[in-house]
């Protein structure tokens, strides 16, 4: 069971206890709130898919402290993230930047949606012409039956 093992690893190495400790927190509630918001988008590099806000790993602690130091030093949120990327690489961002090498990732959803819509429109148009031009065999058969029935009930007395 890979799933179990993966989760187990998570439990053993990353979540033995929890995230932000009171000692790390900043006194200024506004700065602290910003720090938390940034932390949610920063990956704990030694964990599986955990943000530094969720992880108790040593590295996550260091990163949380760095984030707060930069904020206290007056960095904007973006500058803090840039600083982390410069130090640890793009891997640290849980929400990847929009750049040439990630553009496929970002536009995949919209492209699929638009592609699907276009395909649907083309199919709908084709269906319209088909309705106008031809009947399916079943419909023709039904039509034949109806006309035959018509002929037998209404037309006969007249002729």
């Amino acid at each position, binding site marked *: 069971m890979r799933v179990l093992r993966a989760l187990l690893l998570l439990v053993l190495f990353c979540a033995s*206890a*929890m995230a932000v400790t*009171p000692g790390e927190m900043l006194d200024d509630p506004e700065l602290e709130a910003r720090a938390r918001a940034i932390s949610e988008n920063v*990956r704990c590099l030694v964990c599986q898919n*955990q943000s530094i806000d969720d992880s108790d790993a040593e590295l996550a602690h260091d990163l949380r402290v760095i984030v707060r130091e930069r904020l206290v030093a007056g960095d904007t949120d973006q500058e803090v993230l840039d600083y982390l990327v410069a130090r640890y*690489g793009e891997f*640290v961002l849980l*929400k990847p930047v929009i750049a040439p090498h990630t553009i496929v990732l970002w536009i995949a*959803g919209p492209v699929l949606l638009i592609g699907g819509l276009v395909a649907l429109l083309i199919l709908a148009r084709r269906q319209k012409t*088909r309705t106008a031009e031809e009947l399916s065999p079943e419909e023709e058969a039904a039509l034949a039956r109806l006309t035959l029935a018509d002929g037998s009930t209404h037309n006969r007395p007249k002729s």
Partner: protein
Amino acid sequence: MTIELGHFALILAFALACVSAVAGYVFWRRGESIASFLQHGAILQFVMVAVAFATLIQAFVVSDFSLALAANNSHSLKPLIYKISGVWGNHEGSMVLWILILVTFGAMVAAFGRDLPKQLLALVLSTQSLLTAAFTGFTIFTSNPFTRLSPAPFEGAGLNPVLQDLGLAIHPPILYTGYVGFSICFSFAVAALISGRIDAAWARWVRPWTMLAWLFLTLGIAMGSYWAYYELGWGGWWFWDPVENSSFMPWLAGTALLHSAIVMEKRNALKIWTIFLAIITFSLSLLGTFMVRSGILTSVHTFASDPTRGLVILSILAVLIGGAFSLFALRASALRAGGLFAPISREGALILNNLFLATATGAVLVGTLYPLLLDALAGTTISVGGPFFNLTFSILMAPLLIVLPFGPLLAWKRADIVAAAQRLVGVGALAIFLAILLSALGGVSISLAPIGLLFGFWVAFGAFAELIERGKIGRIPARESLRRLVGLPRSTWSTALGHFGLGVTILGIVATTTWETELVTTMDPGESARLSGYTIAFESFDQVTGPNYTAEQGTFTITGDNGQTRTLTPQRRAYVGSGAPTTEAAIETYGFSQLYLQLGEPVDGTHVVRAWYKPYITLIWIGALLMAGAGVLSLSDRRLRVGAPSRARRRMPEAAQ
């Protein structure tokens, strides 16, 4: 001795499956005779794999550590239930469970499928046997669960504390039933492609199987989510982890399949698309089970640590999925398009549903695999995590949620959207009113929260619009309405319940994300703190001893605003023979909301305490349960009941009036 019996039974099942698959594909045109052969073959495969599985369970129960699998994964001191669940708590054993479920589904088709056209039945069972052959072969040759140890160790090594959890014990069988159930849809799709024949009867057959698989997958995912919530100890319930995504993708595709099969059954349209979805859904299930297992998803390095296994798995997937899609490309054009319909119609709405669900599936797939591809091709490592998925997925889902309540109100073939909109005016007004009211009362920390609430209420209340309409509630005497409601087909109730469940889940997600409050502080016994109207008093701190662990336990008294008190005891456990301590969060449920309390590591002689108030969080899983319940309700509808086509036919004239 029993171990060898099991080993032999599994080999027999493999041989039977090989023979069935080959014979079936060669002679399927003969119909009757070959179908009867394959039916017996399918039931025998089931018996053989069941014997193999039973011998494994027996070895675990009696702690026969001469079986390598038991020695590595069991322990004589484990409680009985965890000895049994230990059979599938590892790679080899879980493979046997996976195959057991596969052959169970095959045997069910063989047993209930007597009314199927014989050629179709033969092809379905051949395909099912092919799958069995592939995965029993993989198990026997690369991950044999029956390997013996000599000399046998005195005691087993597997007393893993984290895995000893009831949720985790029953989670894999339920999830696997969901994954593997879609194999039936896959086999039916392949059979339809080979024979070139597909009609409404095909859809009538496929839909209950899809429903069955879907409801188990729904339960499995919900359960996994709740397990992560209470066990991992930081109160998150969905992480967009590759492991989770790989179960979510077949769910999304399966949901689409469920809806497109309706169109096919009722209107004989969307045939090609339904076949495509059936193949895609099972392919994603295979990816879900095996990409994770091969290690390629979690880390490229684990994959390299067992290259044979991973390569064999990937080859099997490539052949099965590639083969099915080649067949699709070759034969799909032979299937005739069916009934016609205007864009604004029930069919049109279901196509929109499929468009959005398919897009969402694709987006999750790209998000899950893109970092791997980028790493392999360009050597750049990026992370695609929760924040990315939350953003993109909710944008893709929003239009689906807007149109959802319209769907059941539209007529087949050609519908009046204005009339449907008029019927939803009340629902819309109520949803807007409640969203504004709750946002005003609760305060809004996230700017999009009112919109989320609006979506939740819109979907949840909108689910009842069809019932109100068809029961003519308010327009005729209540007694008469009630009679009409009771007389509605169960599938109508199922639709309403399923959509309502989705709305409930959305409300739970939005409410808990918006109004969750958190407290992180240091406390000593005797101190207390407040969180969202609850007073959390730290009474005492003790060392306690469990059956196989020792723990530091905090005793807290929670006092609500109404003066009611409850006691919570979060722990930090150290299990015998396992170094790292684990946290056991304490969770107390208040109505639909929960208080989540966790004892952190001691800092400078004082205790770090974390508490969350999670309003309406249980709605997330209650909604999932409602959706699964809707599946059960739909399966109990006589029209859909497996093996009841004659009764269904008798009802047809009535429906035509």
